[in-house]
């Protein structure tokens, strides 16, 4: 079903290589539920954040030197001598944080509105793969400036693998390419930090292919019943996403230009010193909940398993929550537990930054137990015992009947000129 393009050059190319038809189909006429709220902006925003990171990253790689003797100096040269180097580096540095903010909101949106449920299980699992790849990429990227936190973060995290029985020590030596985090480690981290974002792009493509198979979920969580429930992606969601991007960029710029180091750690402006460990090693904020779970268990292997388990549990989430109702809007008890989970993760983040002593340890353990309880016990039980509220018949119906409450509909009457 080739679209009819007016430009003859486009028509000529499209006849032989239907890229324009493809783009028209997937980005222009692509039918989208008309009731998506602003929470649905964060998917495309994450894609844009990825592009920002790749563009600034490739630029930084033109000036960065992956060698223990020069890495810190080359980053300072970027900050001081390279034209606009400070801008590009601060975009990249804060971009990592904002990428995670956007993706975490995107994930929690999926959790609330049941976007992981059939038929979108693979879409969800691909998302979890992207999250894992992002974490690996962010971790290795943080090592590259070769400051104190870079070095000791790399040491601590790579040492996690020594918890693996029998082969642990050999695996860590293999990861390091030596007997400590050193030049070989820095070099391979640079190589992989450059590679992984493109792997992420690949998985993102699959994520979008899976998304476009059944289309977006929506705040009501009910299936689209017909053309009345849908609008074409362009111009409706292109402009809505563009507006969301504008709002995002305002917050992003505020950090880049006025508080570029707020989310970082001062110790990373001290060159790496293998002989002196900083008083408190803390990962970047986006790892803190997982770091807290790691420290909740007094056993080394147990902590590592639990930390990876915290993400692994997301993989099987579609089969833990068996409730046929997707959206949390129609699940009164689920809704409460959803917000408890949000609070739990914020608490874990807070505790992850605290020293592992006294009440903090007990608090971390409670929060960790709650995290797993939520996914492994509460969600399965809720799907059996919860009585959901009645669902609307279609997306258009409640809008016409109740006269409001859903994005896109309320503005319409006031908008007439």
């Amino acid at each position, binding site marked *: 079903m080739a679209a009819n393009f007016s430009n003859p050059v486009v028509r000529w190319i499209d006849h032989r290589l239907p890229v324009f038809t493809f783009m028209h189909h997937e980005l222009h006429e692509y039918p989208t539920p*008309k009731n998506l*709220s*602003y*929470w649905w*902006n964060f998917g495309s925003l994450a894609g844009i954040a990825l592009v920002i990171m790749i563009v600034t990253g490739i630029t930084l790689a033109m000036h960065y030197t992956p060698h223990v003797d020069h890495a810190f*100096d080359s980053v300072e040269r970027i*900050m*001081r001598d390279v034209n606009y180097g*400070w*801008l590009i580096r*601060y975009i990249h540095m804060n971009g990592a944080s904002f990428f995670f*903010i956007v993706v975490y*909101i995107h994930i929690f949106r999926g959790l609330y509105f049941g976007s992981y449920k059939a038929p979108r299980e693979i879409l969800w699992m691909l998302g979890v793969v992207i999250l894992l790849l992002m974490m690996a990429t962010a971790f290795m990227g943080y090592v590259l400036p070769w400051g104190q936190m870079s070095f000791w973060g790399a040491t601590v995290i790579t040492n996690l693998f020594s918890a693996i029985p029998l082969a642990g020590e050999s695996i860590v030596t293999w990861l390091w390419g030596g007997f400590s985090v050193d030049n070989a480690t820095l070099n391979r981290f640079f190589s992989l930090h450059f590679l992984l974002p493109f792997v992420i792009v690949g998985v993102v493509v699959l994520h979008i292919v899976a998304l476009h198979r059944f289309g977006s979920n929506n705040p009501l969580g009910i299936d689209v019943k017909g053309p009345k429930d849908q*609008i074409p992606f362009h*111009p*409706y969601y292109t*402009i*809505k996403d*563009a*507006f969301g991007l*504008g*709002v995002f*960029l*305002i917050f992003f*710029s*505020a950090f*880049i*230009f*006025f508080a*570029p*180091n*707020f*989310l970082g*750690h*001062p*110790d990373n*402006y*001290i060159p790496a010193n293998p002989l002196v460990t900083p*008083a*408190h090693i*803390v990962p970047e*904020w986006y790892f*803190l909940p997982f770091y807290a779970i790691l420290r909740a268990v007094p056993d080394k292997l147990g902590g590592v398993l639990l930390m990876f388990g915290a993400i692994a549990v997301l993989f099987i989430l579609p089969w833990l929550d068996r409730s046929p109702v997707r959206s949390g809007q129609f699940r009164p008890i689920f809704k409460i537990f959803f917000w408890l989970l*949000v609070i739990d993760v*914020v608490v874990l*983040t*807070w505790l*992850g*930054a*605290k*020293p592992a002593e006294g009440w903090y340890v007990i608090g971390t353990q409670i929060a960790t137990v709650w995290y797993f309880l939520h996914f492994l016990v509460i969600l399965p039980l809720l799907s059996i015992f919860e009585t959901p509220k009645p669902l609307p018949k279609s997306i258009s119906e409640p*809008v*016409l009947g109740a006269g409001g409450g859903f*994005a*896109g*509909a309320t*503005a*319409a009457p006031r*908008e*007439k000129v």
Partner: protein
Amino acid sequence: MIARLTTTIAAVAVAAGAWSFAVSGPAQAAGPAIEYPQHDWSFSGPFGTFDRGALQRGFQVYKNICSGCHALSYVAYRNLEDLGYNEDEIKAIAAQALVVDGPNDDGEMFERSGIPADRFVSPFPNEKAARAANGGAYPPDLSLIVKARPDGANYLRALLVGYVDPPADFNLMPGMNYNAYFSGHQIAMAQPLWGDDVTFEDGTAATIEQQAEDLTTFLAWAAEPEMEERKRAGVMTILFLLVFTGLLYATKRKIWADVH
């Protein structure tokens, strides 16, 4: 629809607030908390700039007091242009330094006088030499010191004015000095500022506080020489984005007007 957007933004802001509260943990967690006085800096705030007089005075303090032990290796003499010095003044300042260069055709390293393109010459050839000359303590490079400490400017100023008599029951180790604001209160560096350590070229009275403030301003510049350009660009960017986002919002409303 505005309500919807506002809800989304508010929710994100609350979450962000919670995160940043959680994230701000490490600063508090680092050792027993020592409160240090907050100073009103010329360079704080979104429109703050470095006071040029303070920068030049601070440079004078660094050169006369600190540079004997502390390097400033990421700053080049040419960067002093930011402080308001002209080309000839910078050449004269650079020429006072002896730079090790080479090897020459005989394979020997040789000394020459500095040029503006050189970076500040470090007082010691390497960290080991610095430690050996300072009783085992390493005087850190000051290029990034303001960025490398939490609330760096206030901390540094407090440290410089924080040399007081130790409490009677304090057990001070030999060779150490008491400082009210240093973590653990024992610092290897002897009190560097006593008042009138330099005679300021502009006639400002060189009290301990004045010198501490000026030196901190200079080192804040050394850590973030791009700060003024960054803030200027930031103001322009945010103003642009406000207008552009406003336009996008208006366009969005227009486009969505016919959706029922």
